[in-house]
């Protein structure tokens, strides 16, 4: 399974666009840490790109609040097809600890469709790597 997974990963080079939809930064720094030499997700071709128009995968962290909701949807629409969305952290999945705050949504799947949830608060860089690779394994 793992071998098949990495084979797929090697074939493809997912370009990733990261958007912070009012997250606490915890998941964001872990995502950046996973790009750093110790974890080095770039081994699998995953590159953080600065524009959604270049990206295949949208990584979303954080609860979606009223202010970022429309902006998230707009960024999602700018992604070229086929597009995949990864939700990192408990907040992005359901709202996590902020569930019930007056300006916090109930996860990003209310706004855009999600292909992969990586739960955790925050997930380890390895968990993020596992999630990205799993998504790549399921693509095609």
């Amino acid at each position, binding site marked *: 399974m*793992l071998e098949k*997974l*990495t084979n797929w990963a090697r074939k493809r080079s997912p370009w990733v666009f990261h958007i912070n939809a009012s997250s606490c930064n915890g998941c964001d720094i872990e995502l950046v840490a996973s790009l750093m*030499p*110790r*974890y*080095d997700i770039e*081994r699998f071709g995953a590159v953080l790109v600065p524009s959604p128009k270049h990206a295949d995968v949208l990584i979303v962290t954080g609860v979606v609040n009223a202010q970022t909701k429309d902006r998230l949807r707009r960024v999602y629409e700018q992604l070229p097809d086929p597009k995949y969305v990864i939700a990192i952290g*408990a907040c992005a*999945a*359901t*709202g*996590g*600890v902020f*569930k*019930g705050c007056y300006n916090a949504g109930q*996860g990003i*799947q209310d706004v855009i469709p*999600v*292909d*992969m*949830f*990586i*739960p*955790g*608060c925050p*997930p*380890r860089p*390895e*968990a993020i*790597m*596992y*999630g990205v*690779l*799993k*998504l790549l394994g*399921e693509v095609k």
Partner: protein
Amino acid sequence: MPQRKTGAVVPEMFRLMLEKPTTEAYPFKPIQLPERFRGKLDIDPAKCTGCQVCALVCPASVITMVDLGTRKVGDRDLKVRRPLFDLASCILCGECVDNCAFNALELTKQFETATPNKASLLMNKAIVK
């Protein structure tokens, strides 16, 4: 103050080249997790008594109690409740583990929990007998 120049880091670069690589072999090899690592929450259904303390202390309202009918103890009818865990919103703080008087809950070392299906993160282990 040292002299200004470009390429002050070049000697260090060569030194680091001789060191072994820092990159971890994950996912090809499993990683070493510290003893206290807080991973996915797990429950031992045999130990759970349905006292609902975990549901009361949870900061992220992960735990809901599900009614499973009643049970006769002596001449009284006692409600049977068991916890249902929505692990998607679990923040892994361990407050429920600390407060469980029966040691039914545990934070395992499992971190590979990514899933395309959010519903699969519902843990109903304690409910389905």
